[in-house]
């Protein structure tokens, strides 16, 4: 009889993790940056702008924008899992993991901040996808920002708050939070701030204002992959604005240039580009083209909840226009199931 030894390791893992948090002596944290490298040491200082990590006597500073995640010594097991789920966009699973944690057992302030951040972030993202109340999520994110002023997640939290404000149809608030990102020490984040402010105008169909801001981003001499990415997103946004301003052909041309250089593994980018293509096709009355564009997002890039919900919403309206009302019903059903607050 050859039974898997996995359950035993599982047992052991659980047993050991029960007390691991209480006995952290010399901290050994590990920071993963956006270049794919990781550094171990003790996280000695955190602020909205970044993190200092020390190994031996040498401190190293990282800007918040350059950090992917930090694994802290003493992390409760479910927090480690939840962090990965959040990074992977699996917010419900992340919340399931976080619910297993008794916050009172958390020993370090940085871990407490991380725990609360991932909690409000996952809730916020689900809210954006219509799967949790947006106002409650916004309140929670605001609570996080108020309490953990020294968290390196602060700008991400502000961005999320902006997204939520926008989703709650409160563009003025959204602008406020997006503007806050300008205070970051990272040029990438400052540029993203302009892009996000522009997207508020896109959402409000203020074509000229949006294009003016987006051009500011597009015309920059990009120096980092992040900025290049933001520029591509800005172009997608501009394509939508052009379509809104009666220049759909120009928008379509712009979006096709993006598709020509598309990196399909960047699903957020791809989803926004195809939604922009959909908007451009709709503007010129090509419903079949629009359906195909939104189907790209629906069938290939559904991991971006807000963009996926947008695409489904459009499909609900467009399928009947191409003679497939039953598929509109399917799209509606999917929308209701996956994003109950989106309709």
């Amino acid at each position, binding site marked *: 009889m050859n039974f898997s030894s996995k*359950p035993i390791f599982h*047992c*052991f893992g659980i047993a*050991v993790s029960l007390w691991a948090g209480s006995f952290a002596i010399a901290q050994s944290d590990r920071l993963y940056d956006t270049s794919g490298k990781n550094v171990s040491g003790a996280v000695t200082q955190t602020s909205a702008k970044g993190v200092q990590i020390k190994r031996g006597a040498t401190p190293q500073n990282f800007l918040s924008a350059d950090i992917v995640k930090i694994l802290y010594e003493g992390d409760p097991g479910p927090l480690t899992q939840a962090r990965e789920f959040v990074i992977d966009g699996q917010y419900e699973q992340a919340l399931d993991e976080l619910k297993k944690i008794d916050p009172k057992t958390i020993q370090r302030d940085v871990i407490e901040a991380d725990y609360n951040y991932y909690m409000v972030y996952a809730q916020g993202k689900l809210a954006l996808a219509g799967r949790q109340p947006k106002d409650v999520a916004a309140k929670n994110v605001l609570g996080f920002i108020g309490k953990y002023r020294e968290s390196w997640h602060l700008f991400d939290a502000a961005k999320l708050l902006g997204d939520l404000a926008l989703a709650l149809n409160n563009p003025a608030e959204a602008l406020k939070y997006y503007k806050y990102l300008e205070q970051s020490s990272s040029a990438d984040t400052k540029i993203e701030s302009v892009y996000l402010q522009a997207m508020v105008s896109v959402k409000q169909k203020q074509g000229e204002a949006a294009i003016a801001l987006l051009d500011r981003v597009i015309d920059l001499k990009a120096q980092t992959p992040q900025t290049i990415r933001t520029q591509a997103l800005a172009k997608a946004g501009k394509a939508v604005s052009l379509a809104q301003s009666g220049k759909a052909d120009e928008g379509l041309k712009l979006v096709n240039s993006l598709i020509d250089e*598309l990196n399909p593994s960047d699903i957020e980018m791809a989803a926004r580009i195809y939604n922009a293509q959909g908007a451009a096709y709709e503007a010129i009355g090509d419903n079949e083209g629009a359906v195909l564009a939104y*189907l790209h997002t629906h069938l290939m890039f559904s991991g971006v909840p807000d963009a996926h919900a947008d695409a489904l919403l459009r499909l609900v309206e467009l399928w009947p226009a191409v003679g497939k009302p039953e*598929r509109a019903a399917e799209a509606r059903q999917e929308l209701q199931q996956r994003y109950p607050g989106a309709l």
Partner: protein
Amino acid sequence: MPIRHAALRPKSSGSLVLVLMAIAIGSAAAAPFSGAGEPAETFLTRLRAANYFDTAILYLDRIGNYPGVDPEFKTAIGLEKAQTYIDAARVSRNSAARNTFLEDASTELDAFLKLGSHPRQSEARLKLGTLQMFRAAQLMVPSSKGDAPDDAKRKEAREGYESAAATFDKIVENLREKLKEMQGANIDAKKNPQQATQRDQYRGDFLQALSMAGEARLQAAKTFTDPGKDGKQGLEDALKMFVDLSEKYDDFPPGAIALMSRGVAQELLAQKEPALDSYIRMLETPDIDALRDAKFQAASGIIRLSLAETPPKYQLAIDRGKSLIDGLRPNERRAPTAMQLQVDLAKAYLVKAKDSKDQKPADLKRSESEGRQLLIKASKVEGDHVAEATKMLADLGIESSTEEVAELPTAEDPDSVDDAYAKAIELYQASENIAQTISAANGKEGVAELEKQLAETRSIASRVLSRGLTMINTKTDIELANNARQLLAFLLYQDQRFRDATVVGSFLAKTAPGSEMGMKGGLIARNSLQNLLIQNTSNTRLVSQLKDLADYTIRVWPDHPETPIFQRLIVELALQDDRFDDARTLINAMADSPTRALLHRKLGLFLYQQSVQTRIAGDDGASEKFQKEAKAELQTGLDAISGALSDDEAMKAALVLVKLHLRADEVDQATKTLNNDKYGPTKVAERLGTSDEAFTSDLYSTQLNLLVQQMTQPGSNTDELIGQASEVMDKLRDSIKGEDASTRLSAIYLRMARDIREQLDTANANQKTKLIQAFRVFLERIAATTEDPATLQWIGQTVMQLAEASMEPTETKASGQAAELLGTAVETFGRLKAKSKDVSLSVDFQLGRAQRLMGDYKGALDTLDPILRQKPNMLNAQMEASLAYEQWAGILPPKYAGNAYESALNGARPDAAKKKVIWGWGKISQLTSSNESFRDMFFESRYHVALCRFLWGKATKETPLIEKSVGDITKVAALYPELGGPEQRKKFDQLLRLIQKELGQKVEGLPPLAVPPT
């Protein structure tokens, strides 16, 4: 027994063919994204998978509109359309529509093949051949009433298969030629990667075509009602091809899979031994995804052949089938071939259940149960196997499988340790599933039932394991036994049966000393004991058990990374119980390690706390002793830090050591500790930074104290020290940021001022005078150079504290140094008020208090009046105002004193609504009497009620007033005999004696407190 051909025939729609179709003409699995540009291939695959076939065709028609599409993909649009039509046909339930789709597919394929030399030509032919097979298989599908196809349909199907075979043969011949040519060309993959890729594609297509050519013949033979007889030639041709494939190309999936097809052909030709050999060889091929399906079919073949033996060889059948079913992967749990195997395996169990020879009744029952469970599980998955499974269940007397629940092992006695462990693992996994379901249910309905089920499952697992463990003997595999013990310990732990978990875990630790497994047992025991101790911290038996476990662990695993944790636990238990000497002994017995250093520091902090508590309790001797011990432990713990590994904790411990040195007037040691390169708080804070505002203020406050103390040292350079102090103040101010920085800074300054006062209170008289002088110089210098409101406030508050510290307890009006200090305070508060109209009420309060202490009672009342109009409930201001009236009365001529005492007692300064703004002691005592948190204020105000009335009566020579003041004391003493504590009681007692003396009564004071019964 003849081979049961029926079992080999397609059950309904030709499942074998469909399986092969999935290989040959099924849409490719979602193609991975590759390169930039429109991801046409992937999107098309997704459209097909979503059954949006018409949209997929539309997309292919519009493909020219999309930038960046692979040019090769664009040239194969016809082939892609054909694939789309084939997929549409496959899912279509309408036979007319299906035929239309198949015709469209044929048209597209024909058109594509006419294009000539496209690299995907052989792929297109393969699709065409498989399309022919698919159409043939359609003809063999039983009618909706379940009738088997008639002879005409069988013939038509056979012809379809034969056409397909011809198509595949053509592909084989064509590719054989091409591959020969390529072989002659000696293609170098490095130099000519494209040609090498093409060659690999041809090889793959060649093998696929060869395999399908054999399969088409096999299926053609199976269109006969007796394939072995009427289709013998076809079977033999197929067999020849499968043998060729399986012998020459068994390194490739089609070659390996041919082993299974070879077995089927041999089985149909009644070649039992060779068929069994082929099936077994199939099972022995590598365990890769591409071969899994063929393995399931081969295992089914083995079961058929084994059960067809006389007597049936059911054990061979079970052995071969069970391992595959047990190892089913999540994506295989609904696979038709796997489900068929499950049904076949059930047959083997049921045959076994009927063989009563050499088997106990319990074994027979278990076999039947296994068979039944397999059938129930299989019947819940849709597919061709369901009809057979349902029929078999009906034969067992189970009419509706949906009502049956798959059974888990029961609490029956296990056969062996092995058996017990296996069952427990199964139960454990089931319990984990239930736990996950509970978690997902998130408190919804049904959770209670699930929780009950969870507890029961865990309980059964524990019972089964417990019984299994009693069967351990000398032949038992030790690893298995220990695994079982560990699982039992963990299950008990999960079940919160901590005592039992402790026993099993400890036993495991002791039976597997020095091993990792033993340590796991020790950890479970340790965690269990900790849980028990949480419930009952003073249980000496548990503490003793934990200590024994720790001692054992330390002895057996001296170098294990978990060992110091055990030691630390014991020390922490001792510290929680204030057994400082025990803790010290334990720590000193530990080997040098970061944990030991940490524990020295921890002990030091506990001792420091103890010194504070004993000082508050008035036991200065004990306090001093604890301080000394704390210093020693903290110093040892800090010195033992290796390298530059000091962290937040060490920094905080070092700061406490600095404070201890300051209290002992050890300025040099305090300075050295504060600035120690390794652990000095100033140095560590510079290195690591501090995010804890309370600690930051504590650090700067201590630094300031130290600098001021340094100023008291002979020969100190006051200017330099003041310069340093100014820098510290700047740092503190800079460290507090944010919108409410000034409020938070004010709170920190207030805390610092109180710290200084506390230090002064504990200093001896000589040191106190020197310190006050030093502080005064320091504060005046800072005050002269700053306009910062928060700093001015801090100076005012600190000077106030210095003044009060330099007054004698009985003094009501400051004089000398204290008066000078108060003058500075009043001036500072005045400057603050002049700078801003928006100063906080606490500044006005402090100013009023300073004025009172200086004897400017009118000024004090005028300052306090507006505060109380704005905030009547500010109790400390109310008390301050009442005290101002009381003390003012004391210096007024008798004719005015009465009014002042009355105001102190009954309040004064009515507002527009005739309500008194200043409440007086009477109202204060009334309002504070019912609130426990104001108890000190209540007794203080009651004391002043009595005092005021007595002094009022004395000043106005009104004896009734004096007599009444007796009642003020005795009434409250009757209600609260302890009168708020010994000090307060002493004050009441002294006042009563004074009153009694004034009245000419016997001076008895308060009656003694009743001694509580012992």
